[in-house]
């Protein structure tokens, strides 16, 4: 069998310019995670009360439900304030954490003009494709990504 090149989805890249200092932006993104992460964006059975990012390599990022239960999204892989952050994202297409799923979200903070450019790259997306055989229909269903995104957008615009 020939070595056909492996086909991988290109990483998702998004950037946003923030009128704030590099330090402040990094601080809000990490320490202030709970202030902007959507409350309805939850993978737990219990309603989400807070969202937490432990600010150290190997730290967890997780949500705490109203009932006190903790549900983990993944881990902090790289923590280099105020410049760079890499999160391991382990939430699969079925909207549940899979400890064996490994996709990476890298976020960099670059001073630019009177603010900071925040670049986000979500990569290794091919890993999703290997784990969704039994979860067809989860994405896009009411309460799945698209439903949560609508709620998130409404909240963020308030």
């Amino acid at each position: 069998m020939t070595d056909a090149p492996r086909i991988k989805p290109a990483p998702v890249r998004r950037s946003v310019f923030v009128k704030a200092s590099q330090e402040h932006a990094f601080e809000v993104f990490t320490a202030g995670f709970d202030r902007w992460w959507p409350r309805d964006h939850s993978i737990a059975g219990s309603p989400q009360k807070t969202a937490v990012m432990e600010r150290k390599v190997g730290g967890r990022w997780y949500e705490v439900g109203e009932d006190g239960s903790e549900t983990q999204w993944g881990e902090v892989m790289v923590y280099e304030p105020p410049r760079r952050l890499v999160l391991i994202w382990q939430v699969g297409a079925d909207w549940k954490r899979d400890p064996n799923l490994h996709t990476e979200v890298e976020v960099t903070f670059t001073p630019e003009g009177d603010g900071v450019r925040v670049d986000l790259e979500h990569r290794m997306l091919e890993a999703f494709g290997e784990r969704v055989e039994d979860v067809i229909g989860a994405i896009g269903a009411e309460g799945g990504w698209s439903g949560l995104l609508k709620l998130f957008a409404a909240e963020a615009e308030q």
Partner: protein
Amino acid sequence: MTNVNLSLAAIADPTRRQVFERLGAGPLSVGEIAEGLPVSRPAVSQHLKVLKDAGLVTDRPEGTRRVYAIDPHGLGALRAWLDQFWGDALDAFRIEAERKEQP
């Protein structure tokens, strides 16, 4: 079912991924794809049908045979899913980051 669902499901099967990945080098016929794969031609055809339904590959007749190629727009569905998510998340983040430091 959305395109994203179909795309994810289509590449979830290991053999189907192999079929899909073989097309990475360029368009191939069913027979060419089946060469070296431990599955029959009818099985390859079936996998190709699923990939086609998911919008991941396209096919066209070429003489007496049918040639398959990767649809460059197919994987876009998966990416679009996350693209929208992170775009919205960063917007919310920007609002919060700027709000707290405005004088």
